[in-house]
C-alpha cells in the first residue's frame, strides 16, 4: 500500500446507492459484516423500492443502503452520509440532497450516459457542469475497470459488468482501511457452485481496492477504531432474523414446538424464510393460502398445545382481525408479529412507519383487549418475541408484537446471549382426569384470571370453546346479559392485570423537569442519540422508551407527572400521544413524521430545542 495520510474518525456514515439491479443491498451488507467483525458499532438502513426490478436507470428503481459505523456506542444509521457512492445518475439525483457540502462522492462515471441522464431527468451531465463542485467528487470508470479486471475469468461481458458493485466496495474498503478477507470468504461460500463467478467478484473487489490505492484517489484515508461495547460475543443481526431467532429460542425455553402460520408479505416474509430453515428445532412453518388461514391455523395449533405465532404486516393484521377476536374470546395463547410498513391500504410496502398502534391496541370489533409490545432495535426484536410468547402462554391471551420495516431490515451488533440468560417460559397444560366431574374450561385463577390450557387428547377434559360468548365457568354458550357484562369486564381486567408482570418505565437524564422525550418502537435509537447530544450540550432533557403499550407500565402516569412537557416523536400522526392523553388526561406534544423514513437525530433535537426555547420566551 502506498503512503496515505490516515485520519482517525469517531464515526462515519456511508450510503451506497444504485439501480435495484446493481446489488447495493448486498454491497451494504458486506460492508456491514466487515465493520462489525472489525469491532465497530454499526447501525444500518436499507432503503429499497417495492418493485423488484424497476426500469433500469430510472429514479423509481433507485435502491440505497446506509450504514453508520463507529468507535463508540451508536443508535442510528446516521442522519446524513459522509460518503455517497452513486452507481448511476438516478442514484445521484435521488441521494445528493442528503450529502453535506464537502462530503465524499464516489460515482461510476461510465454510467453517466445520455440515456441514463435522461432517465434521471438531468438536463446536463452533473459530472461536467460544475454542479458537484461543492463535494469531494471522485469519478471512477467502474464498469470499464471491472470488465478489464475480470477478463481473465472469461465470464461474459454482462456478468462481468455485474461485478462492479464489488469494485465499488473495494474502493470504499480502501478508504476506510478495511480488510478484504471476510468478503472474499463470503463470495467463495456464496458462489461456491460457480467458481468463475466467485473469481470474477473477488477480482473486482481487489481491483477496486488496488485502484483506490494506486492512483491515489483519496488524499486521506480514515480509520474508525473498535467500539467499546460491553464484553461478550457479538454478531450482526437484523430485526427479522432477530424475531425469528426469538421465536425459536422461546420454543426451546418452553420445551414446546413452534407453529408459525404466515402468508408472504413485505417486510415480514423473511421471518417465515428464516423459520422455515430451522426445522431441526421442531419448528413447523405453514405457508397459508391467505392471512386469515395463517391466523386461523395458528389458533388451531395453539388449541392443540403448540406455541403458535403468526407474522405479517399491517394489511395482513387487518385481515386477521376477526380471528384475533376469536383468540381473545377463546383465551388461547398466540403471538402476532406485525412488521409495520407505510399505510393505509397497500401503502408503502418497503418503507417504514409506526401507524398500526391504534390497530394493535384498538382495532377489533367489540371490547377486545390484546396486550401490545414493541421492539426498540433490530436486536431487541429477539427479546420482544420471547417476552411476547412468555406473556401469551402465561396469561392465555393473544399478544401483539410490533416491529417495523426499519427494524426488520436494519442491522446492529448483537451480543449473543446464553440460553440461561433468557427468561423462563413455563407451559402448563391442564392435567387429565378420570373423576367424571365436568371440566370447567373457563374456571380461572382468582387473582391472575388465567384459565387452564386444556388441549385435545387429554382424557376427561372434553369441552367446547368458540367465538360465542362464554359462560364464566363452563365455557358453554351464554346469552345471559349479566354473564356477558361480567366476561367483557373480566377480559379487560385480565389484560390490565398483566401490569404486575411489566417492569416500571425507566428514565434517562433528569428524573424530573422541563421536558421528557418519550418514544416507542424503532424511534428509540434516534431519541436516545438526540437526548444524549442535547444533554452533552447542557440542555436538560430526559428520555424514556415504552416497550409495553398495552397495558402501560404501572408508573407511567407518575413519570409523566414529573415533567412540564412531554414530547412523543412517532412515525404516525400522533397515535401514542392520543392514547396517553386519553389515559392520563394531560396534554402531550407530538413530533410526527410519515415519510416512510426514520427520524433523523437532528429533527428530534431541533424540536426539543424549539419546545424549550418557546418556554423560555413565554416564561
Amino acid at each position, binding site marked *: 500500500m502506498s503512503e496515505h495520510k490516515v485520519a482517525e474518525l469517531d464515526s462515519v456514515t456511508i450510503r451506497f446507492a444504485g439501480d435495484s439491479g446493481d446489488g447495493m443491498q448486498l454491497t451494504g451488507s458486506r460492508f456491514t*459484516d466487515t465493520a*462489525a*467483525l472489525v*469491532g465497530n458499532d454499526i447501525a444500518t438502513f436499507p432503503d429499497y423500492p417495492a418493485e423488484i426490478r424497476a426500469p433500469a436507470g430510472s429514479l423509481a428503481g433507485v435502491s440505497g443502503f446506509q450504514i453508520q459505523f463507529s468507535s463508540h456506542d451508536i443508535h442510528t444509521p446516521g442522519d446524513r452520509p459522509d460518503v455517497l457512492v452513486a452507481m448511476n445518475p438516478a442514484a445521484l439525483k435521488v441521494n445528493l440532497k442528503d450529502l453535506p457540502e464537502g462530503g465524499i462522492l464516489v460515482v461510476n462515471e461510465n454510467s453517466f450516459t445520455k440515456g441514463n441522464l435522461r432517465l434521471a431527468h438531468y438536463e446536463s451531465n452533473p459530472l461536467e457542469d460544475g454542479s458537484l463542485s461543492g463535494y469531494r467528487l471522485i469519478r471512477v470508470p467502474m464498469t470499464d475497470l471491472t470488465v478489464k479486471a475480470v477478463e481473465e475469468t472469461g465470464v461474459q461481458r454482462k456478468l462481468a459488468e455485474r461485478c462492479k458493485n464489488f469494485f465499488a466496495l473495494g474502493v470504499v474498503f480502501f478508504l476506510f482501511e478495511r480488510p478484504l478477507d471476510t468478503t472474499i470468504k463470503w463470495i467463495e461460500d456464496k458462489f461456491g457452485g460457480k467458481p468463475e463467478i466467485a473469481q470474477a467478484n473477488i477480482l473486482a473487489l481487489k481491483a477496486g481496492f488496488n485502484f483506490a490505492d494506486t492512483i491515489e484517489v483519496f488524499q486521506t484515508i480514515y480509520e474508525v477504531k473498535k467500539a*467499546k461495547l*460491553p*464484553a461478550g*460475543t*457479538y*454478531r*450482526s443481526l437484523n430485526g427479522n432474523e432477530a424475531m425469528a*431467532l426469538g421465536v*425459536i*429460542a422461546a420454543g*426451546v425455553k418452553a420445551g414446546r*414446538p413452534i*407453529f408459525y402460520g404466515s402468508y408472504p408479505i413485505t417486510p415480514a416474509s423473511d421471518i417465515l424464510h428464516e423459520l422455515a430453515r*430451522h*426445522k*431441526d428445532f*421442531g*419448528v*413447523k412453518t405453514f405457508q397459508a*393460502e391467505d392471512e*386469515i*388461514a395463517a391466523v*386461523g*391455523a*395458528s*389458533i*388451531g*395449533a*395453539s*388449541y*392443540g*398445545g*403448540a406455541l*403458535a405465532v403468526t407474522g405479517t404486516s399491517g394489511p395482513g393484521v387487518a385481515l386477521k382481525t376477526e*380471528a384475533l377476536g*376469536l383468540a381473545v374470546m*377463546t383465551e388461547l395463547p398466540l403471538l402476532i408479529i406485525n412488521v409495520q410498513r407505510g399505510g393505509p391500504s397497500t401503502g408503502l410496502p418497503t418503507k417504514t412507519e409506526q401507524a398500526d398502534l391504534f390497530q394493535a391496541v384498538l382495532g377489533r370489533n367489540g371490547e377486545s383487549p390484546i396486550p401490545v409490545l414493541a421492539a426498540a432495535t433490530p436486536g431487541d426484536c429477539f427479546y420482544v418475541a420471547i417476552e411476547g410468547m412468555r406473556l401469551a402462554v402465561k396469561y392465555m391471551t393473544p399478544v401483539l408484537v410490533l416491529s417495523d420495516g426499519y427494524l426488520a431490515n436494519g442491522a446492529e451488533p448483537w451480543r*449473543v446471549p*446464553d*440460553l440461561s440468560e433468557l427468561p423462563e417460559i413455563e407451559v402448563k397444560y391442564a392435567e*387429565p382426569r378420570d373423576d367424571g366431574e365436568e371440566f370447567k374450561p373457563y374456571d380461572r385463577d382468582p387473582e391472575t384470571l388465567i384459565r387452564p390450557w386444556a*388441549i*385435545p*387428547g*387429554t*382424557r*376427561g*377434559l*372434553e*369441552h*367446547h*370453546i*368458540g*367465538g*360465542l360468548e362464554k359462560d364464566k365457568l363452563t365455557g*358453554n354458550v351464554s346469552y345471559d346479559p349479566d354473564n356477558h357484562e361480567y366476561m367483557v369486564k373480566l377480559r379487560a381486567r385480565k389484560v390490565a392485570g398483566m401490569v404486575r408482570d411489566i417492569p416500571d418505565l425507566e428514565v434517562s437524564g433528569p428524573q424530573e423537569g422541563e421536558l421528557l422525550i418519550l418514544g416507542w418502537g424503532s424511534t428509540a435509537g434516534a431519541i436516545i442519540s438526540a437526548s444524549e447530544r442535547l444533554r452533552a450540550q447542557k440542555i436538560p432533557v430526559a428520555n424514556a422508551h415504552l416497550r409495553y403499550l398495552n397495558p402501560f407500565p404501572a408508573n407511567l402516569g407518575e413519570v409523566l407527572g414529573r415533567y412540564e412537557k412531554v414530547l412523543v416523536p412517532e412515525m404516525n400522526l400522533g397515535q401514542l400521544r392520543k392514547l396517553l392523553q386519553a389515559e392520563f388526561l394531560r396534554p402531550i406534544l407530538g413530533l410526527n413524521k410519515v415519510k416512510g423514513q426514520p427520524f433523523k437525530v437532528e429533527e428530534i433535537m431541533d424540536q426539543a430545542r424549539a419546545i424549550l426555547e418557546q418556554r423560555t420566551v413565554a416564561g
Partner: protein
Amino acid sequence: MNTATATPTKLTRKDFASDQEVRWCPGCGNYSILSQVQKVMPELGYPKEDIVFISGIGCSSRFPYYMATYGFHGIHGRAITLATGLKIANPNLSVWVITGDGDGLSIGGNHFLHGLRRNLDINIILFNNRIYGLTKGQYSPTSEFGKRTKSSPQGTIEHPIRPVRAAIAAEATWVGRSVDADAKHLAKMLKLMARHDGVSFLEVFQNCIIFNDKAFEAFAAKKVRDERMIYLEDGEPLRFGKDREWGLTLDGLTPHKVRIGENGVTEDDILVYDAKNPSMAYLLANLEYPEFPVPVGVFLDVQRDIYEQSLQAQIDEAKSKPGAGDINALLAGPNTWTVD
C-alpha cells in the same frame, strides 16, 4: 385415518352425546346427521379425548356443542383453517370439520380449495341445504339458478357451485355424497371417510325444513330413491332401479341412461365405476335429476402424500443432521467477534 389406538372401554353412542340441549328446528335434517355421527363414532375406535369437531358459523356449525368430544365453534368460513393448524400441531387427533354451503363454499371458499389440495388427514362434512338458514333464508352458493329467496325476490341470477365437482377439481383424495334421511348409507359414508388416509370430503344433502323444505325430495324421498338415485360402488357396474334394471353407459364422454334388455343393451354394456379415476368421478358428479339419477356414494378414493406426515418427515430429516437443534450455535450464527 386408520392409525387409531384401541380404546380401553367400549364406548357407545350415548358417550358421544353432550349434555347440551339441541336447538335445531324440529324436523331439521341435521338431527339425522348428528345421530349417525354419534352412532358411528364408537365404531371408529378412537378414545373420546382424541376426537375434535370444528365448525364455522351457521346452523350446521352448532354441531360440535352436541358432541361430547372436544369441540371448537370457530368463526364464519374458517373451520378448515383451525382444523389445519390443530392437525399439524397434533397429528394423532381425529379431526372433523362441520360446515355448510354458505360457510364452506362462500365465505370459506378459499380454505375449501386449499384445505383439500393440501391433503391433511382431516374429515370435512358439508351440510348442503342450498340456503342460508341461520340468517333466515337468503340464497346460498349452491342454490339453484332462478331460486326465489328473501335476497332474490325475482330469482337468483347466479349459477350454483356443485360441491362434489369443486372438491374433485380441488384435488381432494376422498370425495363422497350422501343424504341426511338415508341413515344407513350416511353411516357407511362416515365410516369410509374416517378410514381414508388423507383429506375426506362428504357432501350431505340436508333438508332445511323452514327455508328450503323438500329441496331434495324429488329424488331422495324414500319412495323414489331407488329409481332416481344411483349408489356408486368402486368396481361395480353403474346400475340402479328397484330391480337394478337401469344402468349408465358411456359413449365417448357422454353418459347415457339405459334399460338393460332394451335396444340390445346387456349387463356387460354397463359402465363399471372406478373410484380411483378423477375424470370418471367428475363425469358422474355432473349427473343431475331428472335427466339422470343423482349419484351418491364414494366418487373418488385415491392416495397421495399427506401434509402433516410430509412435514414431520422434513423435521425428522432436519433433526438427523449433525449439529441439529443446537440453539447456542444458532444464536451465534456463522460470524462472530469477541469484545473483551
